[in-house]
């Protein structure tokens, strides 16, 4: 039987089944993302893409006004995940925030691991001693959680 960490309940909330160890991993992540945002870490490139490719004036305007708002929204979601990391039930709004945080971290890890169309599968079979193995394990764990949030939200 396939494990589903997130499941919609009949009352409209979502049941969360994660081990203490898994929750500990999730607990460790939001503060790291916050720090990377404060440092303007280049591995966040996929979280803040350009809106205009050939229109410098509009692009700089977009970055000026929207980047701050994007950061604000992300900080809110990171706080919600931190505050509810031990919860056994979440509201739909909270699951959507978890989903976005989980996906943001996948994007950061995928960028760090240089995931491409051709090599994503390669990150699934790294040798345990490979220095990238812990990040790849986290990437696949978050991919599994992401899929579960989507299935629960669509269910």
């Amino acid at each position, binding site marked *: 039987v396939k494990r589903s960490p997130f499941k919609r309940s009949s009352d409209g909330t979502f049941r969360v089944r994660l081990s203490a160890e898994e929750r*500990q*991993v999730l*607990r*460790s*992540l939001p503060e*790291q*993302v916050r*720090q*990377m945002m404060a*440092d303007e*870490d*280049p*591995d966040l*490139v*996929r*979280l*803040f*893409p*350009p*809106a*205009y*490719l*050939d*229109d410098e004036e509009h692009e700089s305007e*977009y970055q000026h006004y*929207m980047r701050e*708002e*994007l950061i604000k*929204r*992300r900080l809110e979601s990171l706080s919600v995940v931190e505050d509810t990391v031990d919860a056994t039930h979440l509201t739909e709004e909270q699951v*959507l925030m978890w989903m*976005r945080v989980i*996906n*943001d*971290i*996948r*994007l*950061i*890890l*995928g*960028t*760090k*691991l*240089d*995931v*491409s*169309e051709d090599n*994503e599968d390669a990150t699934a079979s790294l040798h345990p001693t*490979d*220095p*990238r193995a*812990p*990040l790849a394990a*986290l990437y696949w764990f978050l*991919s599994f959680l*992401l*899929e579960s949030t*989507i299935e629960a*939200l*669509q269910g």
Partner: protein
Amino acid sequence: MPAPLPYVMAGPVAATAPATMSAPTISPAELDEPTDEVAVDPDRPWVVIVWNDPINTMSYVTFVFQKLFAYSRQKATKLMLDVHHKGRAAVTSGPRERAELDVFRLHEHGLWATMQQD
């Protein structure tokens, strides 16, 4: 106190990892350039384009299209497949302010979205 954290994201992964991060796969040169110098009609609609990327999953992209634009599962799946197979898809269009809001919401969800006048 919690045990030392096993996953530290900041900093280089390893000396063996590629020295440069995966660059965005889009460059302005890949866009359709205007074929003439005629001034752009300000009333022409803006088109929101989502580009293929290797990290966002097919199910996530489909879900985001359904959620943000209230598209049916069928329409969202078709757009996702266009992104996947053709490299990009136009997902919404409209006045600039509206298109910019759509781009913002897509960026909030980690999708690679840009906008350009039709």
